[in-house]
């Protein structure tokens, strides 16, 4: 008699779709004491990891989630802040594509002063192209900032060696952040301006630790960041720039928002 494998037993326990083989398995289970015992042991183990009941949320939970999100969501509408909608930038003209390429190259390097000719190209582009470039650069900047903030949030204050790459990234982002703050003036968005200002402060502190980051500094920065809700703000701002506008950049982010 061929006994059921563990995989088959698990399939039984989870009520996998009933096919021919499942029916045969069930029949075997009903008649074989050995398999019945193995099955009972499995059931027992699964009961040990019973479904967790999450801590209760009160009836207003959904309302609270909405209240915290609502102020940050852009209206789906073609109004004067059309950059929030897709479609406008869908067909990038050749000129815009060039300007985009230039902007990315400019952004990637910290030595932006040496690239004045390129910036001139961007500056001479039509206003809507210029704004698009600003948005692409901004979106990339927010992505990188978000990644750094996530790292900081999860940084283990005890192991300071791990955080020197973080400090280096903060230094690189600091220069870019100043650029973005300049550019953000074109967009006239108070939420963005405030977030970039907070980011500036935090990046400055992260970047300017001569002896590296110590435990106390990391803990303090984590507190500041949490009190400020900075990570969330950055995510919100990033989410307001639809992906369609930023395809073609050198974004390397994975699944995270």
């Amino acid at each position, binding site marked *: 008699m061929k006994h059921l494998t*563990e*995989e088959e037993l*698990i399939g039984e326990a*989870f009520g*996998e*779709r009933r096919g021919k083989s499942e029916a045969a398995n069930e029949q075997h289970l009903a008649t074989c004491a050995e398999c019945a015992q193995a099955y009972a042991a*499995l059931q027992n*183990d*699964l009961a*040990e*990891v*019973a*479904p*967790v009941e*999450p*801590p209760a*949320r009160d009836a207003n*939970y*959904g*309302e609270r*989630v*909405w209240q*915290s*999100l*609502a102020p*940050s*969501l*852009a*209206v*789906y*509408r073609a109004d004067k802040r059309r950059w929030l909608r*897709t479609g406008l930038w869908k067909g990038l003209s050749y000129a815009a594509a060039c300007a985009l390429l230039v902007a990315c190259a400019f952004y990637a390097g910290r030595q932006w002063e040496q690239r004045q000719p390129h910036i001139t190209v961007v500056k001479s582009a039509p206003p809507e192209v210029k704004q698009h470039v600003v948005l692409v650069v901004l979106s990339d900047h927010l992505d990188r900032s978000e990644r750094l903030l*996530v790292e900081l949030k*999860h*940084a*283990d204050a005890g*192991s300071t*060696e*791990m955080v020197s790459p973080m400090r280096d990234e903060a230094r690189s982002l600091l220069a870019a952040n100043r650029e973005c703050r300049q550019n953000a003036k074109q967009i006239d968005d108070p939420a963005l301006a405030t977030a970039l200002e907070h980011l500036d402060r935090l990046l400055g502190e992260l970047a300017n630790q001569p002896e590296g980051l110590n435990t106390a500094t990391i803990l303090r920065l984590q507190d500041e960041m949490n009190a400020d809700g900075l990570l*969330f703000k950055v*995510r*919100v701002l990033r*989410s*307001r720039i*639809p*992906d369609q506008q930023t395809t073609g950049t050198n974004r390397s982010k*994975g*699944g*995270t*928002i």
Partner: protein
Amino acid sequence: MHCMGKNDHEAIRAVLGGDKEAFGALVMRHSHSLFRVAFRITGNEADAEDVVQEAFLRGYRKLESFESRSDFGTWIYRIAVHCALDRIKSSRANEASRLAEETDPELDDVQVADLAAGPDRLLLSGEIGALQQTAMQSLTPTERTAFVLRHMEDCSTEEIGAALGIAPNAAKQAVFRAVQKLRFRLATLRVKV
């Protein structure tokens, strides 16, 4: 979570037509189920709340790509599962790099021994979650998520595959590996008692 489909579609049309407030109804309707699955996957209240916010943000941003034939509840649920999986992947990565630094071969045993010291106490004080969490720690993020969806959320392997972006058979295998590992871990814990 599938019962409000019609209202959901009306709300989505309103949002895309410029009525931002209409999204509020969707948030309020689906927050609890998203919180539940997020909590089960992350095992942590604060992370679960973050995941819920993130999921709705991503959902709002991608709303134009939502297919009107699909069910919004299922769609946003999958986004939340993704967010939760990302979350445990990134915290796992941090944990792994921390553990890599402390190359203590006995570390694993020490952790097991600590928790095995008082399973009765854990059970009696209602902290069954701690024992379960320890067992769950032996799973990879994908295995953990697949197992939670199968065992706690009653999802089919097809649904799990869709939520994780893998083939149903791969989802089934992930659940199988998860159960095997969990059983092994539970056996270890029992021996230590």
